[in-house]
């Protein structure tokens, strides 16, 4: 599959199209809106589904393959916010608080972008199997998880690791901590315990008990502990319908993004450029890190997507507590109205393309 095909495959998925429809709906001032509660329900569903499946996959995968990519994920989570902060301060002229808050968002990750990356790779697998069947390389009617099918994915580097959701979980928190520490050092005042924002302890608690981290880690463990037997009990609800639910969620994400588009003028061209170039740079780092630590091409691509994605659940909640002086207009607009659509529409096939080149597949 060449780059253009992958681009179209991604662009023409119902998920991405639903996102675009959501943006259009706000542009034509449609009265379509999702109740808050539905948004919350969809978020809970997605986080639980990602966590459970990740935990189950972890329970059947080889943990010794895990520690290198795990370290790479932590490293990305530390380096990306530092670089981001420096760029935003130096070239973007943002103040300490805003630079730190934006850096926290770009170092952390977006579970929905991750979900879409997984969905994209599942579609790639289906396509490669279909192509192999048409080419006569495997017998017609080969099941999607038959050994022959796995061999096809393997040959094309599509057989992504089972522990990827663990990387998502690992990368959620560190960047936010790093950004907060930087801001406190830079503000050169020991406000760690001042009223200006929560103490570092508050922030840690907020982060670890924050709903996205709690659900991801919690259900990762539940999935791991309850294993195959547990997974089979809940898979008809959390596995097969996943991409359909994601479609609804991305429709809502499009509505929110559309409303945010007006803020693009307020944040200025620098942040728009940052919101596009920083993810590409991070993605490159992610692919290289993946290759260095021995991941499959698909795994490296997903790591790239994680590196490139900007958080909009965990990080905003943390910044409201830890960096109350930072303006949500900057960090929310950047992560939601620039980087999220960019990754979804262009980034995903682009990073796949880069990974194909780098892996030489």
């Amino acid at each position, binding site marked *: 599959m060449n780059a253009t095909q992958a681009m179209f495959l991604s662009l023409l998925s119902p998920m991405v199209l639903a996102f675009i429809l959501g943006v259009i709906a706000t542009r034509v001032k449609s009265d379509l809106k999702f109740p*808050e509660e539905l*948004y*919350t329900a969809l978020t809970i569903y997605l986080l639980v589904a990602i966590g459970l499946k990740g935990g189950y996959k972890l329970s059947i995968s080889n943990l010794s393959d895990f520690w290198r990519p795990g370290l790479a994920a932590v490293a990305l989570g530390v380096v990306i916010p530092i670089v981001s902060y420096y760029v935003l301060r130096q070239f973007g002229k943002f103040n300490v608080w805003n630079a730190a808050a934006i850096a926290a968002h770009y170092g952390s990750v977006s579970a929905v972008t991750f979900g879409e990356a997984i969905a994209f790779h599942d579609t790639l697998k289906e396509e490669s199997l279909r192509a192999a069947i048409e080419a006569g390389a495997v017998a017609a009617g080969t099941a999607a998880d038959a050994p022959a099918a796995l061999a096809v994915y393997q040959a094309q580097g599509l057989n992504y690791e089972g522990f990827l959701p663990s990387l998502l979980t690992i990368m959620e928190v560190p960047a936010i901590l790093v950004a907060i520490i930087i801001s406190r050092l830079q503000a050169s005042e020991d406000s760690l315990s001042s*009223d200006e924002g929560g103490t570092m302890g508050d922030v840690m608690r907020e982060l670890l008990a924050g709903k996205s981290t709690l659900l991801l880690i919690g259900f990762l463990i539940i999935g791991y502990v309850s294993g195959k037997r547990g997974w089979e009990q809940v898979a008809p609800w959390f596995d097969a319908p996943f991409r359909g639910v994601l479609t609804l969620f991305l429709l809502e994400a499009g509505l929110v993004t559309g409303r945010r588009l007006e803020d693009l003028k307020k944040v200025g061209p620098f942040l728009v450029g940052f919101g596009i170039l920083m993810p590409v740079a991070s993605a490159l780092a992610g692919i290289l890190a993946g290759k260095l630590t021995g991941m499959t091409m698909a795994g490296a691509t997903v790591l790239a997507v994680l590196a490139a994605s900007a958080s*909009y659940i965990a990080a905003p909640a943390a910044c*409201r507590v830890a960096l109350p002086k930072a303006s*949500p207009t900057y960090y*929310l607009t950047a992560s*939601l109205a620039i980087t999220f659509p960019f990754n979804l529409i262009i980034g995903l096939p682009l990073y796949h393309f880069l990974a194909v080149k780098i892996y030489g597949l």
Partner: protein
Amino acid sequence: MQKFEMKLVVIIAEDELEPRLTKEILSLGARGYSASRVRGEGWHGARKSEWEGENVRIETIVPEPVADSILARVAERYMPHFAVVAYVQTVGILRVEKFV
């Protein structure tokens, strides 16, 4: 029917503050409160969705001195750092025992 005068304090603030504010209110002497979710706009921009955060509207009927200490507490601890609006009104109520 005899009515008594009490103060009604209304606080509109970001919803993360709800547990802290209600604890403060009760500890300052209020015997109860009611809370609901509201959207809003103000100095801190729009707070109209789960992504941007929403607000809580807390109302409590209290004797005047309690009203004053609630307002003072809000002004001192919350207004400098958070999106908060507070106001006070006089209301007529029936059973004084319920609020003091």
